[in-house]
C-alpha cells in the first residue's frame, strides 16, 4: 500500500476517534448538567430538640478541624426572622458530641440579630474555667471606619438584617455566607464574604484564653455533632436558637479543607446562581457538600444529615 494511502487512512481514523471522543465528552457534560439541580432547600423548624434538628455526627473525623488548620464553610441562607427577635440565630455549629459546653472542640457561625452581627467562634472548653476561643464579629449597619467593609458587603443599609431587609441577595432572595479561616490560630485569620463581597477580617475580634491553648488543643479525633439552623446539643441546651420563623431557609452547604481565596469565593458565588461545587476549581479541597435536593445526603463525604421532626426539605 502506498504511503499516501496509509496516511489518508490514519488521518481518517484519527478524525473518527476525535469525533467519538468529542461526542462522548459532550454526553458527559450534558449528563453532569442534567444531574445538578437546585430546586430545594432545607427549613429548620423553630421547635427545639434533637427530634426537630438537622444534624449528623462526624464519626470518621472528616470535619475535625483543629486550631492550626485552614478551612472554609459556605452556605446559602434566606432570612426569615424579623427585627424583634432580639437574640441570636445559629446558622451552623459543629462541636464535640455529648459535651457540657458549646465551644468544646467547636466551631459556630451565628447571627446576632440584636446587634446585626455575624459571629464566628472556634475554640475549646473542657471545664467551666478552662477555656479558650477565637471570636470574630462583623456588623453591617455602620458605614464608618473598620465597619465600612461589612456595610458595603451586605447592602443592608442602616437597617438590620431580616426577612424585611435582606440586603444583597440572588434572584431567589438567598445570601451566600462564606467564612474562611487561615491556618494561623488567631481571630484575624477569620474572614467573611457576603455573596462574593469581601468583608475582610472582623472589626470585633477576641482572642481569649490564650494561655490555655497548649493545654486543651482542639481534638482531631473526637466525634463532632454538626447542626444546621440551631446551636447543637450540650449541657441542658438541645438544638435551640433557630430564630423565630421557619421561613428561614438554608441551601447548598459546602465545607473545604483550605482557606478559599477571594477569587475562589467569587467563583463559588457564580454571579448568584448556585453552582455544582464539585466542578469548582478548588474541588479537590471540597470535603463536604450538601444540596438538600430531597434529603440531607452528602454529595461529597459520607456524612448525611438527618432532617428530623418539623424540619423539612422545602422548595427553595
Amino acid at each position, binding site marked *: 500500500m502506498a504511503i499516501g494511502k496509509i496516511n489518508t487512512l490514519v488521518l481518517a481514523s484519527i478524525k473518527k476517534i476525535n469525533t467519538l471522543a468529542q461526542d462522548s465528552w459532550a454526553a458527559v457534560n450534558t449528563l453532569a448538567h442534567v444531574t445538578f439541580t437546585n430546586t430545594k432547600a432545607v427549613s429548620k423548624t*423553630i421547635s427545639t430538640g434533637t427530634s426537630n434538628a438537622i444534624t449528623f455526627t462526624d464519626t470518621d473525623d472528616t470535619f475535625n478541624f483543629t486550631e492550626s488548620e485552614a478551612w472554609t464553610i459556605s452556605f446559602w441562607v434566606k432570612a426569615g426572622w*424579623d427585627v424583634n427577635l*432580639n*437574640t441570636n440565630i445559629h446558622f451552623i455549629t459543629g462541636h464535640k458530641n455529648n459535651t457540657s459546653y458549646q465551644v468544646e472542640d467547636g466551631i459556630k457561625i451565628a447571627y*446576632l440579630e*440584636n446587634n446585626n452581627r455575624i459571629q464566628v467562634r472556634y475554640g475549646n472548653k473542657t471545664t467551666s474555667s478552662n477555656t479558650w476561643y477565637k471570636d470574630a464579629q462583623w456588623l453591617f449597619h*455602620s458605614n464608618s471606619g473598620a465597619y465600612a467593609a461589612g456595610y458595603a458587603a451586605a447592602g443592608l443599609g442602616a437597617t438590620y438584617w431580616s426577612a424585611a431587609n435582606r440586603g444583597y441577595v440572588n434572584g431567589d432572595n438567598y445570601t451566600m455566607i462564606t467564612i474562611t479561616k487561615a491556618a494561623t490560630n488567631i481571630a484575624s485569620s477569620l474572614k467573611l464574604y457576603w455573596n462574593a463581597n469581601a468583608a475582610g477580617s472582623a472589626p*470585633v475580634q477576641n482572642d481569649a484564653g490564650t494561655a490555655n491553648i497548649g493545654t486543651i488543643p482542639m481534638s482531631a479525633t473526637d466525634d463532632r455533632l454538626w447542626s444546621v439552623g440551631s446551636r447543637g446539643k450540650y449541657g441542658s441546651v438541645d438544638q*435551640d436558637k433557630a430564630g423565630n420563623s421557619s421561613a428561614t431557609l438554608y441551601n447548598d452547604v459546602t465545607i473545604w479543607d483550605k482557606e478559599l481565596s477571594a477569587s475562589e469565593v467569587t467563583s463559588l458565588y457564580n454571579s448568584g446562581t448556585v453552582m455544582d461545587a464539585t466542578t469548582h476549581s478548588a474541588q479537590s479541597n471540597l470535603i463536604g457538600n450538601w444540596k438538600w435536593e430531597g434529603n440531607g445526603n452528602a454529595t461529597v463525604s459520607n456524612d448525611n444529615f438527618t432532617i428530623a421532626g418539623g424540619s423539612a426539605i422545602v422548595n427553595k
Partner: protein
Amino acid sequence: MNYYIITKETFELVDKSQVHFMRKSLDKTKRLIATTEDVEERIRKFNNIDTCSSYTFTNHSSWVGDGTGIETWEIEEITYIPEIDD
C-alpha cells in the same frame, strides 16, 4: 463588673467607655448593661452575671423574641461598641 437594668434616658448619661455589654429591651425603653461604673439611678441591680441572665429568662417577653433569654456567654462576649451605640 456591675449588672443593671436602667432606662434609656439613664443610659445616655452613663460612661460608655465602661460599658462592656448592652441589650435594649424589646420595647426599646430599657437597657440591660454590664459596666464597671456604679450606677445609682437604676431599675434593677443584679448580684452577678448568672442572676442577671436568669432574670431575662424569667422575663423573656421583655427581652427576647424567641422565648429564651440573654445568656451569660452573650453578656461576656458580645462587646458593646460605644461609637456606634451597639
